[in-house]
């Protein structure tokens, strides 16, 4: 801890010094006199959102003659690489993609991101509270989400019917029965991308939430200790599922978004369900042989409850996309951010089907049945947990993924993985 404080304060000083110099140099960024340029990096580098963002920026410039918005659409991985270099050089863009959580916290600690609490507070209640949470650090807001979603089970109704399953499982025990029934009917119960690790971490995270409750995950992270009965129980519950061998052949080598990966297996109707975020139907479509996915046959049910668990069914696990404001951004940046998140503009974004809105009033623009279920579950959520590999510092998040992968492959026991995760948590 000691070192964290010194590093933060020193970097803060360095950051403040650098921004003073930069602000001094860029006098024209100050409000009032002349043009302001907003340098905007987003990762919606394909239509429909590419065009939607461009149109919104144009609208804003039409009413704000002194603002010039330079848009830089980047591919996801390219964005991460470019942002890393830009932030290391101490010059982040003015407005940029962020997922919140531990990654954002690192940037905040390094003094690269602006605290926009005062600008955002007046209109923050138009947003779903769950969606803002990943961008709130120590009570201060460092970003605003434009898209939010959650993880749940996507299932193939036809295959469920074929195995004689009439109701979606409501408890973990029910789920295990469903898996056995599907296996008995010769159907692969679950598609899993073992190569990519993060899809498996959804199971472990959700089970931990259901067994120990939301607070258990937050407490474990702050105490740096996962070696507790709740996490061991959660790992054991997951092991029960793994021991039924519910996954498709060769799942340990399977990718997520490829024709023979998790999404392809689901989209082609070769497995009955997958635990995935709100984007699942779109990726199933893209990776299926027919390019149509499952269509009407696809259903959604929330992650089941665990008997005797402290968590509630209405606590959700997910994440979203948002924008953070760089430390040197001109004053009009937050105004532009507000413009992007008006109900009208959120409806436009939602209309594309690529975004689940964070502005409550825009929920009426959702058309797809499953997306509506996701959105209403989210809106009714009593608690929200960001993906662990984003919520926690990157090293801890990666260790959760690695350890869960070892549990899935059967090379480590439930007791061992919580010890491994704890030892990395302690080293942070």
């Amino acid at each position: 801890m000691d070192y964290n404080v010194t590093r933060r304060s020193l970097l803060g000083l360095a950051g403040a010094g650098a921004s003073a110099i930069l602000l001094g140099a860029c006098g024209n960024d100050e409000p009032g006199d002349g043009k302001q340029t907003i340098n905007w990096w987003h990762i919606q580098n394909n239509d429909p959102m590419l065009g939607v963002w461009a149109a919104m920026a144009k609208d804003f410039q039409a009413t704000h003659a002194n603002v010039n918005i330079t848009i830089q659409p980047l591919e996801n991985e390219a964005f991460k690489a470019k942002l890393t270099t830009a932030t290391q050089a101490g010059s982040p863009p003015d407005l940029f993609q962020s997922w919140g959580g531990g990654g954002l916290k690192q940037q905040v600690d390094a003094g690269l991101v602006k605290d926009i609490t005062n600008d955002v507070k007046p209109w923050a209640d138009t947003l779903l509270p769950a969606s803002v949470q990943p961008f709130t650090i120590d009570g201060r807001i460092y970003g605003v989400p434009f898209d939010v979603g959650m993880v749940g089970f996507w299932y193939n109704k036809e295959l469920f019917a074929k195995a004689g399953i009439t109701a979606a499982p409501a408890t973990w025990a029910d789920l295990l029965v469903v898996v056995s029934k599907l296996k008995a009917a010769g159907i692969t119960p679950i598609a899993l991308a073992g190569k990519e690790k993060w899809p498996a971490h959804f199971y472990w995270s959700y089970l931990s939430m259901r067994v120990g409750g939301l607070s258990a995950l937050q407490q474990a992270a702050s105490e740096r200790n996962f070696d507790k009965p709740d996490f061991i129980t959660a790992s054991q519950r997951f092991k029960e599922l793994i021991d039924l061998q519910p996954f498709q052949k060769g799942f340990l080598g399977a990718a997520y978004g490829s024709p023979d990966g998790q999404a392809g297996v689901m989209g082609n109707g070769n497995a009955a369900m997958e635990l995935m975020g709100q984007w699942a139907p779109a990726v199933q479509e893209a990776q299926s042989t027919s390019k149509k996915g499952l269509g009407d046959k696809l259903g959604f049910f929330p992650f089941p409850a665990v008997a005797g668990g402290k968590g509630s069914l209405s606590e959700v696990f997910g994440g979203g996309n948002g924008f953070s404001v760089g430390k040197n951004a001109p004053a009009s940046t937050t105004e532009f951010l507000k413009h992007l998140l008006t109900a009208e503009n959120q409806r436009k974004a939602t209309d594309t089907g690529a975004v689940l809105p964070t502005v409550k009033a825009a929920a009426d623009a959702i058309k797809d049945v499953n997306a509506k279920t996701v959105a209403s579950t989210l809106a009714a959520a009593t608690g929200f947990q960001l993906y662990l590999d984003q919520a926690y510092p990157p090293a801890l998040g990666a260790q959760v993924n690695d350890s869960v992968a070892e549990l899935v492959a059967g090379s480590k026991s439930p007791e061992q993985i919580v010890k491994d995760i704890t030892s990395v948590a302690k080293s942070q």
Partner: protein
Amino acid sequence: MNRVSSPVATRKRGHRPTLRGAGTIAVFLAPALVLFVLLVLLPILVAGYTSLFKWNGFGVPENFVGIDNFTRAFGDSVFLGDLTRLLLLVVLSVVIQLPFSLALAMLLNQPLRGRAVYRVIFFAPYVLSEVTTAVLFTLVFSPDRGLGEQIAAVFGAEGVAVFADPATVIYALFFVVSWKYFGFHMVLYLAGRQSIPRELGEAAITDGASAWQTFRHVTLPLLGPTIRISVFLSIIGSIQLFDMVWVLTGGGPIHASETLAVTMFSYGFRRFEVGYASAISIIMFLLSLIFAIFYQRFVMRRDLEGAITTRGVQR
């Protein structure tokens, strides 16, 4: 620099180097030197520096931890596993891949119908990039629908998902590496074989040597330099193996196909433990450097006479 009695100049040319001559040298040397310093030396020094810190890559490294990152590496089961897998890959290459390439080269040195075609076919995989190769074999070994599965089905067997099994993945990886590089080594050997004067083989046969004896006592010794350089390239390649593994398996399942470079990458760019990743990269660098020096000094000594290792020996 331009001292009158510069030994190099007197030996080489026998006349005095002028100030202008030194200037010319500087002008021609500068671009390469600047690039070398900026792109090779400086990054090594920076990595060496950051490897002494616990640093997440943001801002300036401040938390000095000495050699902790290095001691950590030698207690890290993944890193130690990388070293074991490296050794396994090297042994497999030297014992299987290179002899296979050599045998093929000898075969294609025979007057064979259409041997030019064979040579091209065998060399072709080398032209593909590692990423392309990896994607190709992901498709071939795709469970349920890959070519491997189809072929297994013909024989009534059920194909195994070789990349999904921690026990087989490293051998599957070796197979793909070999598939890509055997043609390259074959061409090296072929070139080496063709530079051996025909008379030597003929003389051996005249003396009553069998085909095997000719190969064992004439061809093989004369191929020595080629074999040594081919082993050298193969080992350095194994140390640095990254692209193919990253695309093919990502190092998994459960680190069973992870290499040093993959471990370094995932610590540096996934976990943002840049200090530790730097330490791993420094170890990789030292490993390559020490190996290269010793190999050249002791194994390739005769091949390199007068070039790198034995300074000042003039022919």
